[in-house]
C-alpha cells in the first residue's frame, strides 16, 4: 500500500508546519520522516492518519492524501485503515493489555465484529508476536516503557491496518531499550511487510532502521533517498549538518565563496608532508575513549577548529601530543555555495562531491 501526499500546507496561527510538502512512500517499505523538532514531520504523519486536516488552498489538488492511488482525503481516521502508535503510547489506562489490544476489534459494529473467541485468538497471537504472552492481564501502568511500546504496536496491528504510522516510537525510552526495540521492529517489519512510516529526530535511528529516509526542515522536505545515499550525498548543508558530526570550513580563497564540509572520519592525520593540498594544523586535544579517538585541531591558516576521528590503532602509532603540528588530508568533502550565493555562482560542478583536497 503506497502512500502519497500532494502539496500539503498546514499553519498553526503564525507558525507554518508544512509548506507545500509532497511525499511519496513506496509500498511495503519502512520509511523514516527525519527532522529537528518543529520541522513538520509529526504534522505530516498526522495528516496521513487523518488526525489533522491540511489547510485548504486555491489548488484543488493541494493536501490530497492517496493510499495506493485511492483518494482518502475525506475518509475519517477510523476508516482509513491506519495503525497509529502515539509517542507516549496512549494506551487505555483503565483496560488490561488484553483489552487494549482487543479494542479495535471489539468496537466494530456488530455485523463486522469477530466473535469473542476469534478476538481472543487474534489477541493471543499478537501477544506472542510482541513477546508478552502471559502479561495480558496486566494494566499499562504495570508495564515498563518498552513493553508499553510493544503493546501499543500490537493494538495498532490488531485491526490489520493497511499502513502503520509511528510517532517518535522510541522517543520516551532509554538508550539500551531503544536499541533492542529498534532491531525488534526491523525484524517485525521484515515479517509483516506493512507499509510503515515513522517519525524521528534521531538521525542514527533513521539511518539504521529505514529503507528510505525523508529529511525535513522548516516545513519542507530537504531530501528523500535510501539511508546510504542521504548520508553520502547530502543535497543541502542542512542535511549534511543534521546527519552526524561534520566540520564546516569556509573556503574563501576563490572568487565565489563556498562552504566546505568534511566528516571527522574522512580526515587523515599525517605527521609528514602530505602534498600541497594537505592542510597544516595544530593539535589542541586528544580524546581517546572508545573505538575511535577524537582529535580536536586548529587549522593553521584560518584558526578554525576541526574535529577528526581516528581509529585507536592509528592514534597510537601517531602518538599525538597537544600542540603538535600535523598535516590533514581530507579523503572526502562536500562543497556548497555559501549562504546568500546561488549555485550558479560557483565556478564549476555546483554542489557536487569533490575528491580529496581539490582547491582548498
Amino acid at each position, binding site marked *: 500500500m503506497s502512500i502519497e501526499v500532494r502539496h500539503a500546507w498546514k499553519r498553526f496561527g503564525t507558525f507554518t508546519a508544512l509548506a507545500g510538502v509532497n511525499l511519496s512512500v513506496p509500498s511495503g517499505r519502512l520509511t523514516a520522516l527525519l527532522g529537528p523538532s518543529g520541522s513538520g514531520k509529526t504534522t505530516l504523519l498526522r495528516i496521513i492518519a*487523518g488526525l489533522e486536516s491540511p489547510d485548504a488552498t486555491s489548488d484543488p489538488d493541494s493536501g490530497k492524501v492517496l493510499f495506493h492511488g485511492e483518494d482518502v482525503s475525506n475518509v475519517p481516521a477510523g476508516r482509513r485503515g491506519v495503525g497509529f502508535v502515539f509517542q507516549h503510547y496512549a494506551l487505555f489506562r483503565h483496560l488490561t493489555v488484553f483489552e487494549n489490544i482487543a479494542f479495535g476489534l471489539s468496537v466494530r459494529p456488530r455485523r463486522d465484529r469477530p466473535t469473542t473467541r476469534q478476538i481472543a485468538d487474534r489477541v493471543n497471537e499478537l501477544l506472542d508476536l510482541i513477546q508478552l504472552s502471559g502479561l495480558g492481564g496486566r494494566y499499562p501502568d504495570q508495564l515498563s516503557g518498552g513493553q508499553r511500546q510493544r503493546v501499543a504496536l500490537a493494538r495498532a496491528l490488531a485491526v490489520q491496518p493497511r499502513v502503520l504510522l509511528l510517532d517518535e516510537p522510541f522517543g520516551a525510552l532509554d538508550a539500551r531499550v531503544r536499541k533492542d526495540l529498534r532491531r525488534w521492529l526491523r525484524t517485525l517489519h521484515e515479517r509483516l511487510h506493512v507499509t510503515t512510516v515513522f517519525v524521528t529526530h534521531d538521525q542514527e535511528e533513521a539511518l539504521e532502521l529505514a529503507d528510505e529516509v525523508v529529511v525535513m526542515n522548516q516545513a519542507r522536505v530537504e531530501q528523500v533517498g535510501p539511508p546510504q545515499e542521504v548520508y553520502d550525498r547530502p543535497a543541502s548543508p542542512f542535511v549534511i549538518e543534521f546527519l552526524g558530526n561534520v566540520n564546516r570550513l569556509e573556503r574563501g580563497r576563490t572568487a565565489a565563496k563556498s562552504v566546505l564540509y568534511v566528516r571527522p572520519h574522512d580526515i587523515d592525520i599525517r605527521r609528514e608532508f602530505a602534498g600541497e593540498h594537505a592542510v597544516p594544523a595544530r593539535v589542541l586535544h586528544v580524546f581517546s575513549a572508545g573505538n575511535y579517538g577524537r582529535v580536536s585541531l586548529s587549522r593553521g591558516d584560518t584558526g578554525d577548529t576541526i574535529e577528526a576521528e581516528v581509529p585507536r590503532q592509528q592514534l597510537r602509532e601517531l602518538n599525538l601530543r597537544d600542540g603538535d603540528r600535523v598535516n590533514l588530508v581530507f579523503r572526502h568533502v562536500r562543497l556548497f555555495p555559501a549562504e546568500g550565493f546561488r549555485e550558479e555562482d560557483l565556478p564549476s560542478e555546483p554542489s557536487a562531491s569533490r575528491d580529496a583536497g581539490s582547491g582548498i
Partner: protein
Amino acid sequence: MSGTASTLVHVAQPHRRRTLADPPWLKRTLLVVAIGFVALFLVIPLGAVFVEALRGGFRLYWAALTEPDALAAVRLTLLAAAIAVPCNVVFGLAAAWTIAKFDFRGKSVLTTLIDLPFAVSPVIAGLVYVLMFGAQGWMGEWLADRDLRIIFATPGIVLATVFVTFPLVARELIPLMQAQGRDEELAALTLGAGGWKTFWRVTLPNAKWGLFYGVVLCNARAMGEFGAVSVVSGHIRGETNTIPLHVEILYNEYQTQAAFAVASLLTLLALLTMLLKSLIEWRHRRALLAAAHAETRTFAS
C-alpha cells in the same frame, strides 16, 4: 549590637543542621494549636448538634424527624438534589470535555464563567431568579398568564440549587481531563471507534473517580444550600421548605431540640460526604502510586 549579632552567628552555626528537623517544642506547640482549633471550631460544635438533638431522648428525636413538615422538607431536599446532581453531571461532562479536549475561541471565557456561581453571593443568585421569574419580574406576567409558578415553588428551588452547584462537577473534571490529554481518544478514533463509543469506553472510565468526587461534593452542596434557596422559597411549610430552611424555622420558633434533630441529618450527610471523599482520594492516590511505581521501573529497566 555587633556583639549580639556575633553571638547569634555563633549560636546559629551548630544549630544549622537541626533546623532541618524543627525543634520539638515548636512541633508540639503547632500540634496543640491545630488540634485546639479543630476541636473548638469543628468537633465540639458538631458534637453539640447530636447532644442537643438527643437531649429530650430518642423518642422526641424520632418524632421531630417524622413530623409531616420535616418529612416534606426531606422529600423536597432529595428532589432538588436528584434534579440538580444529574443536571450538573451532564453539564460538567460536556463542559470539561469541550474545554479539555478541544481548542476553540472563547475557551478561557467559558472556563471563567463556570466559576461565576462561586464568586456570586448565594443570596444574589436567588434574587436574580426572583427578578426574572417573580410576580413583578421580567417573565412574571407571561408565567402568571399560563398559571406557571417558579418562584415560591419547587421549580425555583431546583433552579437555585442548580445555580449554586453549577461549577462543582466541571471543576473536578477539567484538570483531570486536561492532565490526561486527548491521545487516548485519538487512539480510539484511529482504531475505528466513533465519538459515542470513545466517550463511553475511554473518556468516561478514565474520568470516573473525578466524576464521582464531583457528584459527592455537588450532592452535599445541593442538600445543604441555604442562601439562594431561602430567597426563592417563600418558606411555605410542608411545601417549599428544604431541610436547611426547616431547621431555621424550627430554631426561630424556639423548638431547639427539633431544630437540632433535623440539623443532625445534615451533619450526618456531611460526615458521609467526608468519608466518601477520603475513600475516593485513597483509591486515587493508590492509582497514582501504582503509576509512579511503574514509572520508576520503566527507568530502571
